[in-house]
C-alpha cells in the first residue's frame, strides 16, 4: 500500500499558475483524484506506462480497453507482461499485473478485451477523462468523433492523446468543441510508405520492393481465398522465401525474415524511452485536469529525441471546416406531416447557405442522394415519404451540397400536427 506523500505537496496549495486560485480546495482535489473514473485506451507500449503512472499518482478507478493479445516482440518494452502471458489479452493481464504490484484494495482496474467500437457511445459518458495510447489512426478518429458527439450541457470528456514513432512522439489535450480535435490535424500525418506497383512488378531496387512483390502480387495469386496471417509462421515463411527468391534473382541484398514481417505488418520501431516520455506527459495532464492544480497543456506538445532532445508546445488551431468539430449539429424545425421533399425544400431555401442540390443521409440509411444518377433513382422514392417515418428519434442527418465547404449536420425538432392542416380543412 502506497501513501500519497509524494503528490501531497503538489495539491496542498494552488500552484502559482493556477487559473482559479480562489475556488481551489486541496481537499476537493484529493477527493476527485480518488473518485474520478478514467479510461485508458490501449494497453500496449504507451498503455503499460500510462496505467503504471496513473496507479502511482493516486487514481483509483481506472478502466482499460485493448483488443490485442500479447506477442513475444512486445515484452522488451511492455513491462507488465511476462513470457507466460503470450497470447492472452493485454488489457486483462495489464490490469492484473498493476493490481498485484500496487497492492491497494481501493484501486480498481476494469479491463475490457475488445474493440473500442464495441461499446455504445453512451458508455463513454461515464468517464471524466480519456487517455489514448493507440497505434492506429482509424481508432483515434473514432474515439475523437465519439467524444465530440457526447458534448452537451453536462458532459465534456477531454481526450488526452499520446503517440510515438521511433524517437519522436506527441501528446495533446483535446477539449471537444473547445480546442482543436484530432480530425483538425489529419493533414499533419505523414502518409504510409508505399511503392509504385510498376516498380514492384518490374524494376525492384530495394529489399522492400521484393517483399511487397511477394505480399501484394504473389500472395493473392497463390492464395486467392485466404488472407495473409502474420501470426502464422508458415505464412511468414512462405512470404519470406518468395521475397528472398525474388531478391536473389535481382541481386538485391537485405531481405530477412524480420524485415519481411516489418514490411507486411507495417511495423514502426518502438522505443521504450519515447513511450515513457510521452506517457508521462499524458498522465501529467490527466493529473492536472483532475486535481485543478495547474493549467493544462495548450494543446499540442511535440517531442523529438532524434538529436539530443527537442520539444515544442503550441496551441494547434481549430479548423473552421473540420468535419468533426467544426460542424456541430444544428436544430431545424419540421412539421410532423412534412414529406422528405418538403423538408429539403425548407432546408435549401431557409438556411444561410443557399443550397443547389442537397443530399441527405443518416448513419443508418441514405435519405436522398442528388447525384450520381443511379443513386438518385434509388433514393427518389423516399422524397414522397413522411420525414418523421424515415428518421429514428434523435437521428442526425448529414447534408452535403456543392455550396457547402464540407457538410452540415442537422437534428430535426418535429412540431405541429401529423396531417397537413390544409388537407383537413378540405
Amino acid at each position, binding site marked *: 500500500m502506497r501513501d500519497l506523500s509524494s503528490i501531497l505537496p503538489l495539491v496542498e496549495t494552488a500552484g502559482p499558475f493556477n487559473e482559479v486560485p480562489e475556488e481551489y480546495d486541496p481537499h476537493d482535489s484529493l477527493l476527485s483524484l480518488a473518485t474520478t473514473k478514467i479510461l485508458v485506451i490501449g494497453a500496449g507500449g504507451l498503455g503499460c506506462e500510462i496505467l503504471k503512472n496513473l496507479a502511482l499518482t493516486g487514481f483509483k478507478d481506472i478502466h482499460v480497453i485493448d483488443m490485442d493479445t500479447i506477442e513475444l516482440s512486445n515484452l522488451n518494452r511492455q513491462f507488465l507482461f511476462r513470457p507466460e502471458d503470450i497470447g492472452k489479452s493485454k488489457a486483462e493481464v495489464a490490469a492484473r499485473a498493476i493490481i498485484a504490484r500496487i497492492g491497494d484494495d481501493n484501486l480498481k482496474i476494469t479491463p475490457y478485451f475488445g474493440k473500442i467500437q464495441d461499446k455504445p457511445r453512451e458508455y463513454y459518458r461515464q468517464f471524466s477523462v480519456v487517455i489514448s495510447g493507440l497505434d492506429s489512426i482509424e481508432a483515434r478518429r473514432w474515439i475523437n468523433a465519439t467524444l465530440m458527439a457526447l458534448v452537451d450541457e453536462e458532459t465534456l470528456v477531454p481526450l488526452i492523446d499520446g503517440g510515438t514513432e521511433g524517437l519522436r512522439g506527441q501528446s495533446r489535450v483535446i477539449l471537444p468543441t473547445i480546442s482543436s480535435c484530432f480530425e483538425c490535424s489529419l493533414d499533419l500525418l505523414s502518409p504510409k510508405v508505399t511503392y509504385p506497383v510498376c516498380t514492384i*512488378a518490374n524494376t525492384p531496387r530495394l529489399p522492400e520492393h521484393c517483399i511487397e512483390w511477394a505480399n501484394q502480387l504473389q500472395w493473392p495469386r497463390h492464395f486467392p481465398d485466404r488472407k495473409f496471417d502474420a501470426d502464422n509462421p508458415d505464412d511468414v515463411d512462405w512470404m519470406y522465401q518468395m521475397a528472398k527468391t525474388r531478391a536473389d534473382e535481382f541481386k538485391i541484398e537485405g531481405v530477412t525474415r524480420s524485415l519481411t514481417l516489418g514490411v507486411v505488418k507495417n511495423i514502426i520501431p518502438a522505443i521504450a524511452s519515447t513511450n515513457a516520455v510521452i506517457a508521462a506527459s499524458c498522465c501529467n495532464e490527466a493529473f492536472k485536469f483532475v486535481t485543478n492544480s495547474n493549467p493544462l497543456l495548450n494543446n499540442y506538445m511535440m517531442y523529438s529525441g532524434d538529436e539530443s532532445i527537442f520539444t515544442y508546445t503550441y496551441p494547434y488551431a481549430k479548423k473552421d471546416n473540420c468535419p468533426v468539430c467544426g460542424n456541430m449539429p444544428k436544430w431545424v424545425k419540421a412539421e410532423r406531416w412534412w414529406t422528405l421533399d418538403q423538408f429539403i425544400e425548407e432546408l435549401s431555401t431557409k438556411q444561410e447557405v443557399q443550397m443547389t442540390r442537397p443530399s441527405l443521409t443518416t448513419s443508418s440509411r441514405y435519405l436522398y442522394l442528388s447525384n450520381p444518377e443511379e443513386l438518385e433513382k434509388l433514393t427518389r422514392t423516399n422524397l414522397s415519404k413522411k420525414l418523421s417515418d424515415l428518421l429514428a428519434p434523435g437521428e442526425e442527418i448529414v447534408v*452535403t451540397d456543392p455550396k457547402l465547404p464540407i*457538410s452540415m449536420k442537422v437534428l430535426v425538432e418535429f412540431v405541429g400536427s401529423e396531417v397537413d392542416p390544409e388537407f383537413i380543412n378540405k
Partner: protein
Amino acid sequence: MLKLRQLKEKQKAQAAAEGHNNSSTPTTSISAAQLRLQKDITELDLPHTIKVQFPDPSNFFTFNLTITPQQGYYRSGHFHFKVDINNNFPIDPPKIKCLNKIYHPNIDLEGNICLNILREDWSPVLSLSQVLMGLNFLLLEPNANDPLNKQAANVLAKDPRQFERNVYNSMRGGYIDSVYFDNVMKK
C-alpha cells in the same frame, strides 16, 4: 476540473447569446469517412463514358465502374472496375481493381492497376472524381514507361501498330501470346 467548468460556462453563455438552447445530443453519429465520401460521391462530375453502379444501394463504400472510352486504343470496349473504400478514407486511398482480364501495359492479368494517385501519390486532398479521371486517362493513354504487364509495354514501345492490333484482338476475346483475354465488346 474547475477550468473545464469555467470553459463550459463561457461556451453556454455564448450559445445563449446566439439564441440556441436546444442542445441534446443525437443518438447516432456518422463516421468522418462517410461525411467525406458523401461529399465526394454526390459531387462526382464524370463524362458520359464513365458509369457508376451501386450493387448495394445502402452502401456507397463499394461500387462498380464501367468505362467506355470513345477514342484511343481501347475505344468502344466496356471496362469494368470495382472500387472499395474503407472506413479510414480519405487517409487511405480507394482500392480499385479491374474486373476484366485485359491487355494493357499498366494493368496486370489479375486486375492490379499501376496509377500513381492510387498509391504513392495519394493524398487526402484528391477527390474521388480526380481518381476516376486518372483511371479514365490510363485507358486513353496507356503508358509504356510504368509497365505492370511488361510484354504489352514492350510491344507498345517498339511497335505501336502491333500493339494496336493486339489490343483490338484481345478486346474481342482472343489469345495474345497464349493468354486468353476477356471479350469487353459486349455491354
